[in-house]
């Protein structure tokens, strides 16, 4: 073997090693963050003044019943044992039984999660499709009327309470104008015409050819999704503008201009392509925020998703359900956070291990 190839092989091995190290470090971060989430939720569950035992048996139950239930729930064990059991159960998706629905919390969450997913996904789509071009144009025509509009959209998005805007939107577009359907996900008439397959009603109705139900579902979905889309757009357009301003100031843009490329090609093909790298992380973060922000939106629109499930359980001191929901939202949130981090590394060659 020639010495040159041996050196190349060594270099490749070193690079592989660096990549492996990066992956291991990444997994450790994931594990630690998740452990932190579990620790916090466990802590919350323990300091709650509402005794979970009393919540189940009622405060008039005789002492021996209270003690028996306490033992059944494992609440008489030392804290660290309870925590270990808690971790083990949470990792296997066992969050206990909901006091309110008397189903396993995980089964409840699996039932309601598609509704939230549908809403947040459409919201992010709307936000991205409108927000990215707006941000690009605002950066290109800096200081123009359009730039001012993007600024106002951002300011309003950062300042208006989402639940209030939802309420006002319902008042105007549903009650006064009648353009959209009201609260809820689907009218009762159609509720049993579709069999849930994916749980995402737009897909289910389309697959089963129930076009009338599809239109009804869309009418229910469009208002809350547009609302979430607006907040997503406010964030995405502002970040896009900022990234594009950075890119347009780079030397390669000057070089491309000197070469005689058309302005359109420079903006959309060269500058935007580079701005896309940080933008992907922004969109992932915005998606995570929408999943979380749906707590308030779902309450306003009586949308039977995870957010409404959490708030309903809260009002009834159903801590198993609240903590289960928090862990699921937290996991998705952490997952998207770390995914955006990972995507950034994959997409930007400069951050790759050398």
């Amino acid at each position, binding site marked *: 073997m020639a010495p040159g190839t041996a050196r190349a092989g060594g270099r490749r091995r070193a690079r592989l090693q660096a990549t492996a190290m990066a992956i291991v470090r990444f997994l450790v971060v994931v594990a630690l963050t998740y452990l932190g989430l579990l620790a916090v939720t466990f802590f*919350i569950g323990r300091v709650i003044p509402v005794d979970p035992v009393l919540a189940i048996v009622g405060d008039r139950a005789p002492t021996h019943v209270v003690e028996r239930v306490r033992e059944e729930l494992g609440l008489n064990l030392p804290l660290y044992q309870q925590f270990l059991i808690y971790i083990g159960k949470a990792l296997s998706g066992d969050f206990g039984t909901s006091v309110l629905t008397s189903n396993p919390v995980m089964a409840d969450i699996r039932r309601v999660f598609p509704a939230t997913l549908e809403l947040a996904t459409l919201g992010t789509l709307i936000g991205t499709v409108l927000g990215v071009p707006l941000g690009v144009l605002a950066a290109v025509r800096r200081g123009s009327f359009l730039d001012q509009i993007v600024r106002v959209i951002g300011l309003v998005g*950062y*300042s208006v*309470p989402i639940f209030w805007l939802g309420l*006002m939107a319902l008042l105007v577009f549903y009650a006064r104008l009648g353009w959209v359907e009201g609260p809820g996900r689907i009218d009762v008439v159609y509720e049993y015409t579709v069999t849930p397959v994916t749980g995402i009603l737009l897909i289910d109705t389309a697959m089963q050819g129930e076009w009338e139900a599809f239109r009804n579902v869309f009418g229910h979905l469009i208002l809350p999704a547009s609302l979430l889309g607006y907040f997503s757009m406010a964030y995405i357009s502002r970040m896009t503008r900022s990234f594009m301003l950075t890119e347009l100031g780079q030397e390669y843009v000057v070089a491309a201009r000197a070469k005689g490329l058309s302005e359109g090609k420079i903006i959309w093909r060269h500058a935007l392509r580079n701005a896309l790298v940080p933008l992907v992380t922004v969109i992932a973060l915005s998606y995570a925020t929408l999943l979380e922000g749906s*707590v308030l939106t779902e*309450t306003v629109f009586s949308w039977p998703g995870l957010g409404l499930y959490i*708030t309903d359980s809260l009002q009834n001191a159903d*801590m198993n359900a609240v903590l289960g929901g928090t862990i699921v939202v937290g996991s998705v949130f952490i997952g998207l*956070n770390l995914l955006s981090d990972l995507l950034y590394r994959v997409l930007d060659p400069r951050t790759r291990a050398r």
Partner: protein
Amino acid sequence: MKNDAQTWREWLTSERPASRRQARLGRAYAAWSRFVDNRLAMAGLFIILALLLVAIFADVIAPYSAVTDGDLRTARLLPPSAEHWFGTDDQGRDIFARLVHGSRITLFVVVLVAVIAAPVGLLIGTVSGYAGGWIDAVLMRITDIFLAFPRLVLALAFVAALGPGIVNAVIAIAITSWPPYARIARAETLTLRHADYINAVRLMGASPARIIARHITPLCVSSVIIRVTLDMAGIILTAAGLGFLGLGAQPPSPEWGAMIASGRRFVLDQWWVAAAPGVAIFIVSLGFNLLGDGLRDALDPKAAGQ
């Protein structure tokens, strides 16, 4: 010290300040004039000052009581009129009076959250940045964990555990809002920690605690203040959201989010009950956002225009 031929302005904008005080005042003057030139920032400042005045003089401004029920036969759900500027709610209470008194709760929440979260973030960030090593690794890991949490849902869970109420809402929001401040303070500390003047102080025998408290923290404060001001709107919105879900201030307290929640039942016919508090939240949040943007542009000209 000051020559009579010189005006105050010349003294402040002098290129060669003669004393430390003149240099400091000169810098403050430069930042202030940048801030005054920014019309939107001035609007934000005006809104926040107005909020302060309304909160201080609430008893004088509000024409009616904020919590006592009105006459349920004649004063219930009245539309806006000269007598009741924003109408009345389902308990016959004047909405304008409730909004005016609610400004105190809003101010209470933002001030308390800032007072709790900013020092905690500053302390963790500066210690982490100055100490380095495993202390830095552990503190930043914890900060990252809290940063990766969904803030609203976590605040919800905290309030669920602590029980509903305005103080518990404040604690929950504070617990979830310190991590960005720690990050900022750490980043600033990292750029300062090997500066010559820090080395000089260290050679003179200053303890790490003294260096952090007297020489590093003061330089981190301005960026943390900017970030806190920008976060104020988010804090107000989270507090209002908790109030809306019935987890913040409890009735009959005139908290704006809770007022929207109670107006929700009548939104189709008596829209003003829910509309007015929302507008109030929007204006105050907007004020903090404008002020924060203006402060950032004035104190940190590098970041301006981004």
